[in-house]
């Protein structure tokens, strides 16, 4: 059945997120919070995350253009960004955040910029994939996602 196939597809998609390390356990926590009262909770949170974090990304970008670099400020921004990313389970993004902060503490501007580029990339990839995932999930029907497979 098409529907079944869709669900299967979605299921696999989701599984790949975990397998590829894009998402971690925290994402499952969010999924568990989703219920009939908030059927789109996860999507709402992720949307909120992207909206809010884009602001921080912008701040960081602007700060990286300064000369000399204010590592303290950068670190603060990144701390915020990392907190948000962590809360939705964005694993790879979080790893880049950690790396970035380390460069900040080391005062390595070059490292910061490199890492930041990488971070933005991962951030964009995840955004795209999640958007796709949510869209398909909605198409497939909410109740189907009820039997959410747990990440191993």
């Amino acid at each position, binding site marked *: 059945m098409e529907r079944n196939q869709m669900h299967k597809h979605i299921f696999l998609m989701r599984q790949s997120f975990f397998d590829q390390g894009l998402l971690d356990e925290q994402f499952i*926590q969010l999924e568990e*919070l989703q219920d009939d009262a908030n059927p789109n909770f996860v999507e709402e*949170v992720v949307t*909120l*995350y992207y909206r809010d*974090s884009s602001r921080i990304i912008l701040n960081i970008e602007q700060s990286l253009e300064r000369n000399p670099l204010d590592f303290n400020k950068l670190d603060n921004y990144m*701390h915020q960004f990392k*907190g948000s990313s*962590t809360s939705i389970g964005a694993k790879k993004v979080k790893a880049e955040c950690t790396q970035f902060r380390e460069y900040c503490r080391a005062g390595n501007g070059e490292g910061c910029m490199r890492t930041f580029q990488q971070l933005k990339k991962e951030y964009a990839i995840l955004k795209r994939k999640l958007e796709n995932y949510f869209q398909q999930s909605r198409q497939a029907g909410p109740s189907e996602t009820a039997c959410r497979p747990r990440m191993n």
Partner: protein
Amino acid sequence: MNPSNGKGSMSTASSSAAWKAGDVVPDQFPAGLRVLVVDDDPTCLVILEKMLRACLYEVTKCNRAEIALSLLRENKNGFDIVISDVHMPDMDGFKLLEHIGLEMDLPVIMMSADDGKNVVMKGVTHGACDYLIKPVRIEALRNIWQHVVRKRKNEWRELEQSGSVEEGDRQQKPCDDLDYSSSANEGNWKSSKKRKDEEEETEERDDSSTLKKPRVVWSVELHQQFVAAVNQLGIDKAVPKKILELMNVPGLTRENVASHLQKYRLYLRRLSGVSQHHSSLNNSFMSPEATFGPMSSLNGLDLQTLAVTGQLPAQSLANLQAAGLGRSAAKSGIPMPLIDQRNLFSFENPKSRFGEGQQQHLSSSKPMNLLHGIPTTMEPKQLASLHQSAQSLGNMNVQVNSHGAQSSSLLMQMAKTQSRGNILNESAGSHLPTLPSSIGQPIISNGIAGGVIGRNEIGDNGRGTGYNQVAQTSSMLSFPMNHTTELAGNNFPIGSTPGISNVTSKGAFHEEVNSEIKSSAGFVPSYDIFNDLHPQKSQDWELQNVGLHFNASQNANPVQGNFNASQNANPVQGNLDVSSSVLVHQGYSSRQQGSGQNRNISAMGRTMFSGLEATGQGNEQIMDQLLNNLIVDTPVRVKYERFSDTSSQNALFADPFGQEDLMSALLKQQQGNTGPAEPDFDFDGYSIDNIPV
């Protein structure tokens, strides 16, 4: 969860306050727990809200600390627990934590993506009841109700217990299984303090969950009784149960006594530790620095905490610390209990601070009402405690020392508190302002004992009117009589004679104190200390005088008597180690105030307090609140801050009782004003008279 709501035993307390009236039935607990979540990150906020709702809690979220505070203030009993992020743009999470602890005394859980040991430790020291690492899992949130219950239970116990409950009953369980994520809680010094937690008594938990914390105010009289009981039993043998029996105060629980005793012990220990260095009070007094030394470590924390919280301006903190550490030139002895502002308010630390000096004091003598007349907020009790500690100190050094260093700190504290409302944090302008004054006051009188006493007083002070009591109780602080002997020469003639209590004259007071102390009058050595510290700065040592008065004790006219008697400029000779600390505080505050007019200690005490209130206009309430909070929570949490610099000290002495003086002194100190620059707070040379009012 807890079926028994009918325990009924929690009748006391305003239990209903705990839960909205008729709201959640204890049976449903913890469902309906009212949580306030504060986090600037909207994503986290939404997630947390959802998780908490899933736990069946009632959630209110806000993304700004200021908003959170105003929400809490508007709805005093509207929330049961607060969860706050550490890093927030508008206000540091720890600062918010302190505010909440002081003002509302709600359990606060900190959270952060930062899991570094330092940060977690900071949470602990600032009084957070737990620390969660982000990302927060729902399992971690399911158990947060335990913090509410624990807190209420402790309070309830204090209220209800009349000493019949054995401590053994209460086992402090690490609650590992209960608290999934509260790693920070385990071994938390705070929790360990609350040995009374009884996990096993679920029923009480239920009840306690409905109780509002009852607060025991350690008034001067009460403290005096306490001290008398302890002395009677002997400090080593004084156990809460027996003390409670001796005191025979209805409504007082063993828990109350136990926690108060702990503080007292710390105070004494502190005093004794200081005094050891100086055989004579003089020295100790004189060298404020010296005293600071030992205290510094203790206070350092406090100071830092304070600083962190903004209550203690960073520089002041540094000053204090520096003063404490650096100055101890000669007198390293008495670790004047730093009345950490934070301490004052947070009741948490305190014990450690005070306890030290106290042991010795306790053993000695009868409680001198050092603070007898201390008008300032110093409650007689506090004076007494100072006294007690002073006594045990043997050498007033403690006082002196602490005085030196502490006085500044105390002063600062006092000043801070007194800052007519703002002193408290010069920088921070915390709401505590009033509190300090009150706290400071008592502290001074007690000198070192102040630490403990401070607490008590603080509680009272909070009331604003409470302070006056101090003056009245006169007997309470009988400043360590024993010390007086040591004090020879140290300034606090105050000794016990009531006569001395007339310390109206600033300078005189010191003298009095010295003598008094020696004679074991209830003189409040602490006051002397301050005086000593600032030898002549008559800067408004109103407070100092006040402190001295207290020592004088037993007189109805507590402070005044002492001070007046000595009206000479003698600097308070060291014996006021204890009192000096107290005094210092007082002086400090008074100095700060700049008014320093109240030479009349008794009046001063009152004035100080009132002055504070006046100045603090508005602080009163805060102070009251704070004090109430403080008092209720724990026995005096007075934390003696050390006055880092002489200037501050001078300021203290200068205006013995004027709260303004203290405040100004404190302020000055903070500003680094060289002012009296009395580096050498040798009580010997200290003359109260010199203190300019």
